């Protein structure tokens, strides 16, 4: 199935500038954008899963990007929260550099469309380009951020 990146991003789940200054606080701030309801059953459980995932190995993939991710029963739908940090956050990334762009990706244990891994792949692919990273970091608002993703998607 063809994945369209812009379909997974919402203004409610976009943090233009994180207040958090460390990894744990950043994950919390991002999870707090998720409304409790049919789609998110328990934020604390989701947060705990993400913390455990970081114990397994940093999700800081280098070049100033982190993609914290995992599956939890606390969520009923594949969701992405995106956040930026100008000063950067120590994610214990593989290149030891601070992280400025974070794509939190969470999915339920079983998801019929099976988009979780392809979506992670698409995000990783998106941020490989230095030009795209620079544009995403300097986008003035969510509309500009989303427009970059649409542009990248259309180019493929």
């Amino acid at each position: 199935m063809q994945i369209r990146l812009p379909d997974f991003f919402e203004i409610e789940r976009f943090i233009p500038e994180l207040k958090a200054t460390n990894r744990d606080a950043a994950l919390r701030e991002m999870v707090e954008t998720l409304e409790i309801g049919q789609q998110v059953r328990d934020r604390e459980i989701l947060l705990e899963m993400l913390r455990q995932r970081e114990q397994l190995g940093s999700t800081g993939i280098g070049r100033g990007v982190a993609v914290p991710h995992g599956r939890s029963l606390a969520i009923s739908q594949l969701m992405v929260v995106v956040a930026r940090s100008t000063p950067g956050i120590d994610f214990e990334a593989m290149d030891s550099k601070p992280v400025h762009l974070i794509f939190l990706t969470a999915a339920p244990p079983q998801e019929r469309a099976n988009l979780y891994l392809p979506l992670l792949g698409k995000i990783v692919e998106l941020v490989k380009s230095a030009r795209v990273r620079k544009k995403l970091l300097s986008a003035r608002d969510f509309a500009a951020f989303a427009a970059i993703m649409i542009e990248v998607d259309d180019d493929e």
Partner: protein
Amino acid sequence: MSDNVRLLVQLQDLDLMIREISDPERAKELKTLGFEMTGLERLKTARINLAQSIETRWLVIYERLAKKHGRAVVPVEDKTCLGCFQGLPGSFYSEISAHQPVKVCENCGRILYMLSR
């Protein structure tokens, strides 16, 4: 929602993570994407610690159900168990009490996880 249910959900999330990275094909896929996964032993230790904090009888039930069904804890949506997709009786919600904080599906026996409100 009962603390036991929340802990069981956390345990299941951990088990799922451990299972995923123990699957060579899945681990390879994630490594190809650039994710580090060197802390499997740390996760297994976290699992042991978490299991110790769960009431024994529920842990035993969880382990038995996980072995049988893969997933021991399943969500409830629209008064339906999402493990066996059978509807739950009308009295289901009113029966939840301090004496019976963890509910299981009468049809499949799985532990039911409801929206926390």
